[in-house]
């Protein structure tokens, strides 16, 4: 059973924003709404600068789904978190709940009127009939129904951003990590949060 996921390889991302542009173009996302963006840490520090591309991570236990007062979210069998814009009231709870800042709200009018929420759909459209003009206008292109993967991942020039079934992309990433001469130390708690004991050193070579 496919479970769609994104995985961004920080060693490969060159902050070109090609994924952001691809998403904007493919889904005709309105001005001011960014379904995907590139985040850079240690910007300008030689050797320490890392970038990753972030969008909705299609969480297995999505907090946006849990807090939505009108229950407009749903999860497909492929593990994609989608929402029904006909039900959304634009309250913004999902924005506060999401750890990735994925939900976006179009703003218009003199008082910063907040529109209905818009977010990455993993290029899977929404509740409207698949591959129709109505679906495209509300949610963007339904590439999964065309047998394609999200435009951001397919357009990534360095293939830093991988998209697809979690098992498949994890295999690709694992192969890369092993080729770089790293092993299992690049996964897990120690890499994410540092060494637990005083005086212990993080894995040689930093993260991969």
């Amino acid at each position, binding site marked *: 059973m496919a479970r769609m996921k994104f995985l961004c390889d920080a060693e490969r991302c060159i902050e070109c924003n090609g994924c952001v542009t691809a998403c904007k173009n493919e889904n005709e996302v309105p001005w001011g709404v960014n379904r995907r963006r590139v985040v850079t840490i240690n910007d300008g520090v030689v050797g320490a600068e890392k970038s990753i591309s972030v969008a909705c991570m299609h969480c297995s236990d999505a907090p946006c789904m849990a807090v939505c007062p009108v229950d407009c979210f749903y999860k497909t069998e*492929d593990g994609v978190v989608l929402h029904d814009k006909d039900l959304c009231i634009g309250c913004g709870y999902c924005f506060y709940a999401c750890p990735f800042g994925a939900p976006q709200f179009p703003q218009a009018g003199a008082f910063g009127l907040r529109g209905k929420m818009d977010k990455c759909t993993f290029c899977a459209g929404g509740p409207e009939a698949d591959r129709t003009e109505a679906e495209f206008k509300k949610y963007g292109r339904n590439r999964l129904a065309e047998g394609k993967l999200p435009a951001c991942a397919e357009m990534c020039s360095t293939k830093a951003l991988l*998209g697809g079934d979690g098992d498949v992309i994890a295999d690709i990433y694992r192969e890369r990590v092993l080729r770089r001469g790293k092993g299992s130390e690049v996964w897990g708690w120690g890499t994410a949060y540092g060494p637990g004991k005083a005086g212990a050193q993080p894995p040689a070579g930093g993260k991969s």
Partner: protein
Amino acid sequence: MRRVALGAAVIAALFAVGCGEQAQVTVYKQGKYQGKPDTQAWNNASPAAELRGSAWNKGDRGSWETAINQRALGQNEDIRIYKQ
């Protein structure tokens, strides 16, 4: 005594509810996911020819997954460039 037993039973039942777990498996029923209508990707006709997508048999989830996974492997340049 009977009241105490009844009260204990109610409290035990409430604790048992706390140990419950929500179903992790997504159910697609009558064209809907959790009450919201949507079509499964594999229930569309394959537009491989006109849209240059993957080809699968309509309604066959397995063939759609095989096609999409094959496409995902295209992201691995080791396969895409060197092993073809």
